[in-house]
Structures are given as structure tokens and as C-alpha cells.
């Protein structure tokens, strides 16, 4: 009816499937069956989605800046001829194979606080409203981080390779060994960085991150092997390289040094921020961790979705039938027993959470009676 156009024009249109037909559902971005699920949609899924998206974007920009700006520094030393520092296959496979899966896993599974805590602390929703996690400032920070990493990635091998010879006296400062060293350092540095960024390590995260590094090395060994050179000599000119360079101790020392030099500033900044001015999210995470240690492990029973013990207030037009719905008490759940953690919770009085929430947004909220749609 008329609500379909309102849903379509909203930033997010939510439809509730019910007895009024499915038109609203078909036009909406999200739809569910009961109005109370809206709370979970916003506070848990919406918030997680914003959080994951911002982390994903920040990491992606950082990774690509670190990967690409190395060529800018190399330009000063190769006559500005646009010679690539990595070999062609690495450039092709870097974004597709070596680094795509870990960041995908982070974008799908990451959580900062558990869903129950997200519902208990609606203030956690504020960073999303105030655009705090990814704005111009955050973008420039990502860019600066990428620039710094590219400096470490280029100049540490540059210094180590300047006018040197290898362990057996033979050539080690050749272009191919330089490329292999830098490529390996880059893969390891960005993998360590995603390991630092991921705050919720499921099995899948482990498999993707360590599996990507393992894939990199296995593809590297394959491309530098004699067999594939025999088949395609012009496509794989790096034959014998891995055998020669990655068996030299000094190359591994360079890689280790580069990794530590790139990662240490990040760890310092995050540690200081978390300990000196922790955000609400950090505090809840620390609280979660302490709880987990204190609570003995017990088997998980399937959780029923609990909404918070708040009363929802609606504004309805006076029409017959809804009175019975409300007075039957089906919309009000019995108060849950208070949590035993001893947390101080600020209690909400009976004004609806949605009204408080609405005071912060600039868009209007309208609750309709005919179709239970909410325009935000």
C-alpha cells in the first residue's frame, strides 16, 4: 500500500511479515516476523555489520598502500623506469589468493563484544551514529600506516642488499632475490597485521590466515621449481630462486626484522589507546574476558533469543483488536532474573528505548498502525 514507497525511500526499510500481507516484506531491505526483533537487528547485527565493514575497509586500504608504494620508493633507485619490485605472478596473485581470504573471514565473523552485551549496552551503537570508525581521519591513518609499512618493507631489504654477496660468495643482491625477499616480507607483514586486527578468532579465521601463508609458500616453491620452468620457460624465469635465496640465513633475518619493524608501532598505539582511554567496547571486552575466566566451563545449551527486559511502548491508532493484543500480555515478557556478574547497569525507565534512540537521529521515526513498518 502506501507504506511500500516509504520503505523504498528510507535509508533502511524494515518490513514485518504478518497478517497484513507480504507487500511490505517484498519491498524492504530486512524483514522479520515480530516487531521486537528490530532491537536485535539494530543493536547486534547492524552494529556488528558497521564494525566489520570499517575494519575491512581500513585493512584493505592499508594492505594495498603497503603493497603499491614500495614501487614508488624503488623508482628512486631504478631510474624511475617503473620496474616492478615483485615478479609478475606475485602481483597477480597477491590480492586474489594470498590476502583475500583472511580479510573475508574477518569481515564475516568478527565481533567485538558478544550479542548479549550488545543488547545490554545500547550505547555501543553510538560510534555508528557518529561515524567514528571510518571517516576521513581514519582513512588518513590507514594511509599513513601503509606508507610507513612500505618504507620499512623497502628500505630494510635495500640496506641489507646494498653491495653484498651471499653465504657462498655468489650473487645474492640480484633483482630476483630482492623481489622474493620483499614479496615474502610483504605477505608475512600483512598476515601479521590481519592477525592483530582480528578480534574474534574462529576456526575459520585460523585456517584462512595460516592457510594463506602456507599457500603463498607452496605457490612460490612451485613457480620457482625446475619442472614448471621446463614447461613454460618464458613465463617462469625465476627458476632456482627460492632454493638459493630462502636458504640463506641473512634473508630470513631481513624478513624477521621487517616484520617486527612494521608491526611494533601498531601494537604500541593500540595498547596505549586501550589502556589509557578505552572505549566502551574495550571495557566490555575486558569485562567479558574476566567473566570467561571466572565462570567455569559448561556445555552450551541452545540459546533462545532473549530480548531485553524492557517494555516496548507503541503508539497505535485506536482500532479494535489491538487492545486485546496488548492486554493479553503476549508482547510483554516476564522480567528476567538480574545477571549475577555484579555489573552496574543503568536501568531504563519505562520510556521506550526507541524514543531515546530517536532523539539522536535526525531522521524521523514514525510508527504506523496498519502495517508494522518502521522508517528510520
Amino acid at each position: 500500500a502506501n507504506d511500500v514507497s516509504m520503505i523504498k525511500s528510507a535509508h533502511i526499510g524494515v518490513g514485518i511479515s504478518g497478517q497484513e500481507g507480504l507487500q511490505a516484506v517484498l519491498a524492504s531491505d530486512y524483514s522479520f516476523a515480530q516487531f521486537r526483533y528490530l532491537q536485535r537487528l539494530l543493536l547486534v547485527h547492524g552494529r556488528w555489520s558497521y564494525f566489520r565493514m570499517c575494519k575491512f575497509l581500513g585493512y584493505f586500504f592499508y594492505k594495498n598502500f603497503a603493497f603499491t608504494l614500495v614501487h614508488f620508493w624503488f623508482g628512486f633507485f631504478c631510474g624511475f623506469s617503473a620496474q616492478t619490485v615483485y615478479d609478475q605472478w606475485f602481483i597477480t596473485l597477491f590480492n586474489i589468493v594470498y590476502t583475500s581470504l583472511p580479510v573475508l573471514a574477518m569481515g564475516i565473523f568478527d565481533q567485538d563484544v558478544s550479542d548479549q552485551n550488545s543488547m545490554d549496552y545500547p550505547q555501543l551503537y553510538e560510534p555508528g551514529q557518529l561515524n567514528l570508525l571510518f571517516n576521513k581521519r581514519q582513512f588518513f591513518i590507514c594511509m599513513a600506516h601503509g606508507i610507513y609499512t612500505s618504507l620499512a618493507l623497502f628500505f630494510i631489504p635495500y640496506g641489507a642488499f646494498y653491495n653484498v654477496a651471499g653465504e657462498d660468495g655468489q650473487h645474492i643482491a640480484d633483482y630476483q632475490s630482492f623481489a622474493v625477499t620483499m614479496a615474502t616480507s610483504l605477505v608475512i607483514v600483512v598476515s601479521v597485521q590481519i592477525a592483530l586486527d582480528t578480534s574474534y578468532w574462529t576456526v575459520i579465521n585460523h585456517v584462512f590466515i595460516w592457510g594463506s601463508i602456507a599457500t603463498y609458500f607452496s605457490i612460490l616453491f612451485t613457480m620457482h621449481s625446475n619442472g614448471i620452468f621446463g614447461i613454460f620457460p618464458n613465463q617462469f624465469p625465476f627458476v632456482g630462486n627460492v632454493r638459493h635465496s630462502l636458504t640463506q640465513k641473512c634473508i630470513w633475518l631481513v624478513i624477521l626484522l621487517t616484520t617486527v619493524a612494521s608491526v611494533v608501532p601498531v601494537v604500541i598505539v593500540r595498547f596505549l589507546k586501550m589502556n589509557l582511554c578505552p572505549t566502551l567496547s574495550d571495557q566490555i571486552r575486558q569485562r567479558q574476558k574476566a567473566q570467561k575466566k571466572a565462570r567455569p566451563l559448561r556445555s552450551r545449551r541452545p540459546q533462545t533469543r532473549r530480548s531485553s527486559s524492557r517494555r516496548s511502548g507503541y503508539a497505535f491508532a485506536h482500532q479494535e483488536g489491538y487492545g486485546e493484543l496488548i492486554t493479553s500480555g503476549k508482547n510483554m515478557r516476564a522480567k528476567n532474573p538480574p545477571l549475577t556478574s555484579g555489573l552496574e547497569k543503568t536501568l531504563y525507565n519505562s520510556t521506550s528505548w526507541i524514543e531515546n534512540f530517536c532523539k539522536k537521529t535526525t531522521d524521523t521515526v514514525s510508527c504506523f498502525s496498519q502495517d508494522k513498518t518502521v522508517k528510520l
Partner: protein
Amino acid sequence: MAMNYNAKDEVDGGPQCPPGGTAKNRRPDNTAFKQQRLPAWQPILTAGTVLPTFFIIGLIFIPIGIGIFVTSNNIREIEGNVFMYYGLSNFYQNHRRYVKSRDDSQLNGDSSALLNPSKECEPYRRNEDKPIAPCGAIANSMFNDTLELFLVGNESYPTPIPLKKKGIAWWTDKNVKFRNPSGGESLKERFKGTTKPVNWVKPVYMLDSEPDNNGFINEDFIVWMRTAALPTFRKLYRLIERKSDLHPTLPAGRYYLNITYNYPVHSFDGRKRMILSTISWMGGKNPFLGIAYIAIGSISFLLGVVLLVINHKYRNSSNTADITI
């Protein structure tokens, strides 16, 4: 509509069945994966993990750095194998057009590529209406000075130091990547129909008298074809092997280096030099890595101390378990 609502019909927590539809439950599965409850490790950067890490990094890196630095500086005594290098400066072997100017199939002995080199080798592809073997700018600019070392001993006649010219290239390069073309007994026959690179004096099949160091598998050629990464580099020229445990490889004394100057570098302001060096467990003389390790190790240790102080000072103010909003 609302008039149809009946308090008895409501199923607790479940969706309403659309009228006339099946009693299908559209509730998503209550599995750990779909409800995002997978068991997970949730690490937090606490003082207990970060500070020890910094101290450990400091304590590991500083000795490594000192070890590398001391080893690098100790490369002085001329005992063991001595390596003779020629070094070039301001020579951009890493220029893009230069790096791609080669034909790896031709160098691998492919007969069709021998007579029809790849287009990447332009303008060093054909000369006098014949294909160039080996083609490309890298091969064309091969270093062709000759260096000879003599010991001026007590006798007036200087004794030449034996310089070994094999074993200077990578094993995979010499045996896998570079192969002479097949067919015919003599090497000259196998290269029939090709001509030498423009700047060379001798053709490729006359680089050396020994058959296993001639043609494309000549080790000096292979070493040159392995392009350097940076404009200042050194390439292995010859090996001076140790004679026995009793005598030093290069005894103290006056030496005389005889250079046959064929390779002009003045036009691009380049510089040439000869380097004699021994090798340690981590390669040639390179103070950078040692200094870098010491620097980063000490910075890490210092930061660990600073963070410890900061953490201690601020720990009392923010150690409450309460959540402040």
C-alpha cells in the same frame, strides 16, 4: 486485520502462518555457525602480553645484531676461500626496459627461439640481417674487462695467483636455466645462422676454450645475466681457493692487479672497482643488518620500559572493573 486477532492463535515466539500456507517454520537454524556463536579466541592487548613481548624482542634482537655486526667486521683475515668481485656503481641493471630485454627460451637452448628471438630484445634483436645470439640489452652490455692478480714476492718475477672461473654462478642457472642449443658437434655449428651481439668482440661460442664453460653456459655470462637489484652492485668474478690449512690463501705482501680495460663506464658517470673478500656464515661484509637489529632491539626494549612506566602510573586510575559510560 486486527479484528482477526485471537489471543489463542498466537504461537509463543513463532511467526504467524500466512493464511492458507503450509506450517513451514522459517526460523533459521540454531547452529553455532548461523547464529554466530562459533567458539572463538578473543585476544586483547593487555599489559601482561605486550610488555614481555617488547622485552623479549629487545633481548633477542640486540645479541643477534651484535653477533652480525661483529661477524661482519671480522671479515678481514685472508684465510679460507677468497672471492674476487668486480663492482659497478651508477649502473642501472634494474631499469625496466633493460630487465625485460632478454629471451629466456633462447638462453635455454630452444632452437626456434635461437633463430627468431623475442620482440622484447629490440633493438638488439637482429644485426646484419641475422638474429643475435644472445639477444637483448643485458647480454649486449656484458662486462668484459679481464682482471689478473699477481703476488710480487721476493723474486722479481711476480707469481700469478690461480683464479678459478667455475663455480661462480648459481647451480640452477648453469644447469637448468641456461642451455646451449643442441645439434651438431662443435658449438660453432650449433650457433650457425646467428651473429654476435653488437658490442661484443668475440662471438658467444668463443667465450672460453673449455666446452662446459662455453656458449650460453659460460659462467661469466650467466653471472652477468642475473641482473642486479640496485644501481651499486658487485658480481662474483673469480674464486681463489685455499691451498691448505697451513698457508693463508693470500699471504701478506705486495700484489699487482693487471686490468685489461675493455668496458667503458665514463659516459654514464659509472665507476668500477675490484673487491677481494672472504665470506662468513651470513655472507659478505654488511654492517647494515647488524646495526639495524641492534637499533630495533634497543628501541623495543626502551619502549617496553616506557610502556611499563606509563602503565604503572595510570594503572591505579583506571583499574576499576566498572564500566564507565
